[in-house]
């Protein structure tokens, strides 16, 4: 297989945006083209768009073609949309990677976009129920928070994890987001604020949850030859893995504090990348809820099973620790525009490994990991490096 690298990345402002679905595509696309000299829209051969529910939020399907036209791209080798709920963006990056590695394409944009906020917030929340099984789960009013609450309760019962430790994830990620001008939230948060915020689904409080956010992100993925011609600092895709345990809650591991599919996806990515967990300088993990980040520490091998609470409390997932987790602010701080999230994670690794992350730069970062999930039993992991594998 050919080597593949990121050569450009850009994101829109994330938040409750006064912007249309297409406005968000324009913002991220423009920022992405601006990030790399020497590429104009006509140079891009392929486009993959990760987007979950524009049929509901913008009454629009036929997304890849609509976005290509908005971006000025005329795809000649690849045009596709990926929908894998919250992991749609990373699934799109894997498609671009595979096409380029196989020699079927040389230069592909992957864009993730979601316009979740609606004139009625009730409708925005109702739409989120499309991500769980309609007939057997969503018909009861289920959305994501109670699912992850089950995992948090189990982790607390089994390992003694505390509400305060869950709260520290919220504090860390809100604090990181305060250094990211594109984040949904910019004010930071204290532990008192996090633990005093309203209960969503016990034990998960508002500041331990990602909000409903509009946003878009884009990266340009290139073959080795094109990458080296375009930039002296490509960010190489070294490894990738994806694994699923199941879709419905009742199909997953009986103990919701254990996510074996994440471990399988991570092991595949580490093996392919030729790196170990201790080699990772920064990780963009899928903290849709604080408990998800904590279980990710464990399944990604940053700490032992059950030790995530102590890991975050000791600052080992923050600047100066073992690995900086979610330097851009994560989903809790940046928000979670579903299809855009995985691409925004890649965009953060891109600037970090090039030393362009400004006040949130992780010192001497050479290996970055992204973890994107679409439920507790479905995980995608990417490993990037400043040098190829």
């Amino acid at each position: 297989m050919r080597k593949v690298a990121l050569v450009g990345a850009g994101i829109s402002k994330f938040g409750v945006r006064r912007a249309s679905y297409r406005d968000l595509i324009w913002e991220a696309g423009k920022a992405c083209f601006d990030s790399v000299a020497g590429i104009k829209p006509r140079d891009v051969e392929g486009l993959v768009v990760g987007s979950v529910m524009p049929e509901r939020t913008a009454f629009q399907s036929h997304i890849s073609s609509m976005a290509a036209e908005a971006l000025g791209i005329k795809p000649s080798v690849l045009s596709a949309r990926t929908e894998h709920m919250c992991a749609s963006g990373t699934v799109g990056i894997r498609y671009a990677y595979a096409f380029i590695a196989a020699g079927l394409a040389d230069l592909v944009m992957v864009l993730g976009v979601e316009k979740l906020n609606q004139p009625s917030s009730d409708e925005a929340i109702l739409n989120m129920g499309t991500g769980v099984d309609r007939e057997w789960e969503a018909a009861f009013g289920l959305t994501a928070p109670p699912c992850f609450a089950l995992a948090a309760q189990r982790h607390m019962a089994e390992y003694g994890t505390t509400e305060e430790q869950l709260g520290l994830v919220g504090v860390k990620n809100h604090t990181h987001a305060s250094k990211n001008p594109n984040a949904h939230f910019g004010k930071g948060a204290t532990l008192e604020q996090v633990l005093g915020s309203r209960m969503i689904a016990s034990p998960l409080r508002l500041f331990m949850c990602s909000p409903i956010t509009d946003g878009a992100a884009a990266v340009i993925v290139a073959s080795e030859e094109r990458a080296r011609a375009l930039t002296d600092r490509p960010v190489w895709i070294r490894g990738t893995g994806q694994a699923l345990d199941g879709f419905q809650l009742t199909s997953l591991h009986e103990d919701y504090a254990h996510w074996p599919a994440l471990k399988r996806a991570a092991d595949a990515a580490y093996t392919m990348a030729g790196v170990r967990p201790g080699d990772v300088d920064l990780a963009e993990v899928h903290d849709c809820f604080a408990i998800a980040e904590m279980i990710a520490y464990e399944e990604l091998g940053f700490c032992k099973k059950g030790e995530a609470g102590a890991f975050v409390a000791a600052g080992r997932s923050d600047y100066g620790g073992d690995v900086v987790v979610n330097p851009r602010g994560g989903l809790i701080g940046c928000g979670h525009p579903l299809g855009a999230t995985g691409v925004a994670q890649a965009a953060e690794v891109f600037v970090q490994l090039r030393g362009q992350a400004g006040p949130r730069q992780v010192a001497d970062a050479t290996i970055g990991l992204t973890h994107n999930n679409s439920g507790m039993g479905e995980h995608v992991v990417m490993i990037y490096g400043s040098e190829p594998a």
Partner: protein
Amino acid sequence: MAGDPVTYFRATDPFPLESADFTKLHEFYARLAAGRLSTTRCTDCGRTDWPPRGFCPECAGDAFEWVDLPAEGTVHAFTTQDTGLPAGFEGPRVFAIVKVGAHRVFSILLDADPARVSIGQRVRLKPLAVAADPKGNPRWLPAFTPSA
């Protein structure tokens, strides 16, 4: 169009279409309406799944019979959601994974004080009538309630 009655759009209907016109699982719902929780059993390999299936994930056979599951189970896991529920659903709402025989069934607990729900608690089936479908057919969901 102004002034005409608004068509009932499916796009905001949170409940499945349960009638024979729309699902091969209509027999499940007919049994549920009669107070029975049932599922499919593969007559080729004998495997029983929850929820009911269209063909067997073990042997790929599609010869099924309907079998009743126990009407009583135990709480395997639960959580209460207070706020942020989808439109039309009110908190506090107790979501539960109920162990019914060998199966885990996702549902809600009706008439349950969230503060008094516990792991291992015995609960029984209580079919929940929800909004009729756009053609007026009654619809039911498999909910549970604490056993007396």
